[in-house]
């Protein structure tokens, strides 16, 4: 409960700051961005994030699950290792690498976000399945479930909450990274942030940063609710899995 109160307070703070700055007449020699512009960039930002996530989830989750299957266990190291590497490259560098290869604009930015958002999803999905108590899987097998039934009836429902958590982390991270998309003409709230940096007006930067934070908080909150909804009742009661 307290956790939610803090989130909502932060959200209110971000929105409040945005409104306050937008209503100013002048900041230095510039006028602040208008509500319409902020809204437009927010929409664009959100669109980039959503599309990137919609691509990374159906690729990342199955890939991670595949890495847990017997016979494919060897794939786990290159897959997770590769994703790890993807995230250790500074997001700026990924953006810079994208340009000569894919050009600029919306879609190349989405590709860069895909690379950046992949790791949390892969890592969580992999751990989610691997960390299921082996006794549970053994019992399922001994009772006569086929591999597919074990995956469907036992492993996936148990793994789902953790996978969802990975989606949540990935989304929030991608919201932050998407601010760089403005560098390659993809628009988004980063444009406002970078404009503020360009003219050395921190308030303008804040005018872009606050909505970005608000977006991250809101998306994180929604996904957390979904995560809770997906957690089977039996897992919420106690931590112990027998």
């Amino acid at each position: 409960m307290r956790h939610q109160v803090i989130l909502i307070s932060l959200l209110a703070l971000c929105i409040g700051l945005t409104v306050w700055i937008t209503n100013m007449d002048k900041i230095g020699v510039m006028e602040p961005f208008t509500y319409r512009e902020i809204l437009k960039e927010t929409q664009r930002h959100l669109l980039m994030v959503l599309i990137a996530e919609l691509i990374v989830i159906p690729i990342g989750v199955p890939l991670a699950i595949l890495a847990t299957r017997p016979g494919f266990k060897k794939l786990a190291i290159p897959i997770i290792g590769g994703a790890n590497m993807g995230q250790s490259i500074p997001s700026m560098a990924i953006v810079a690498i994208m340009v000569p290869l894919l050009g600029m604009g919306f879609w190349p930015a989405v590709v860069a976000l895909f690379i950046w958002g992949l790791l949390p999803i892969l890592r969580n999905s992999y751990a989610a399945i691997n960390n299921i108590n082996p006794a549970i899987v053994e019992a399922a097998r001994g009772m006569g479930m086929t591999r597919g039934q074990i995956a469907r009836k036992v492993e996936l429902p148990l793994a789902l909450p953790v996978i969802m958590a990975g989606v949540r982390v990935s989304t929030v991270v991608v919201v932050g990274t998407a601010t760089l998309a403005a560098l390659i003409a993809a628009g988004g709230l980063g444009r406002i942030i970078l404009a503020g940096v360009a003219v050395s007006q921190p308030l303008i930067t804040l005018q872009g940063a606050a909505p970005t934070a608000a977006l991250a908080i809101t998306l994180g909150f929604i996904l957390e609710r979904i995560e809770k909804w997906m957690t089977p009742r039996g897992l919420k009661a106690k931590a112990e899995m027998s």
Partner: protein
Amino acid sequence: MRRLIVTILAVVLTLALVLPGAGCAPAENEVTVGNKNFTEQYIIGEMIKQLLEDRGFTVNLAADLSTDIMRGGMEAGDIDICAEYTGTAWMVHLGHEYEVGDDNNEIYELVKEEDEVNGFIWLNPIWNNNTYAFASWPEFVEEYNVETLSDLAALYRQEEGKISMFTTIEFSVRPDGLPAMQEHYDFEVDEAYIMTGAAGISLIGLAEGECDVGMVFGTDAAIAEYGWHVYLDDQSFFPPYDITPSVRAEVLEKYPEIEDILNELVATFPGGGESATPEIVGECQGIWQGLCAKVDIDLLEPEEVAHDYLVENNLIAG
């Protein structure tokens, strides 16, 4: 125990990284040179650094600064020497409105006079006029029959602003940037047709055909490389931007020889030490386009390009 050792190690390492830079008093013959974060500035920064080092100075180079941070550094005394643009100084640092029609010489003199009062000595200028400009592919120019910015403005009015233009983020929001240009030339770019990005991306954008009109700078290497047409600023909207070494007065007092050394560098460029003329400016721009091309297209290091230039012009030994 192990924790203690790790903590001590961390503290020592941090100090080792922080102390050498942090505000210790400069040694004898030591100066700090600053430059901004684009190619031309990297080159001039290296030129100044290597030349001064050749003449017995120890130089700390603070590269990759933004306009405001570099000026702030000069004002705070953290940076001793930089190469700033006359136009930038006039409008941004000294806060004046640029009056259309003031030419390169006038602006230089005005800046030099006023900034001396602030404690900054402007040496001889290099007339390379690295000002904002817009360019398009020759095909576009032929199709729409546009040559000057006034022509382009008329085209925008005709097409209701629906021609794609790519500028830097900075230009699009600075009050003396796109907003002022649109007012001066009386046209408007449709919101949906304007693209912004990091410096340099506009060049890629134009090269890739992502936009019809792309923002360039007077000395961009790509202009020569691709054969783009640069729209003539027929109403002199854009202020002159001539790169000029400027030094903090205290530093120049302490090391007066710096003035001669850096003026030597300026003298190697067309019109160095003289008044500007359109021909001189044109020549100078060409040289700088070439220098920038070595870095941006041939992918040489600014350090190397600066070194070669200094050697070729007999400023330093090989």
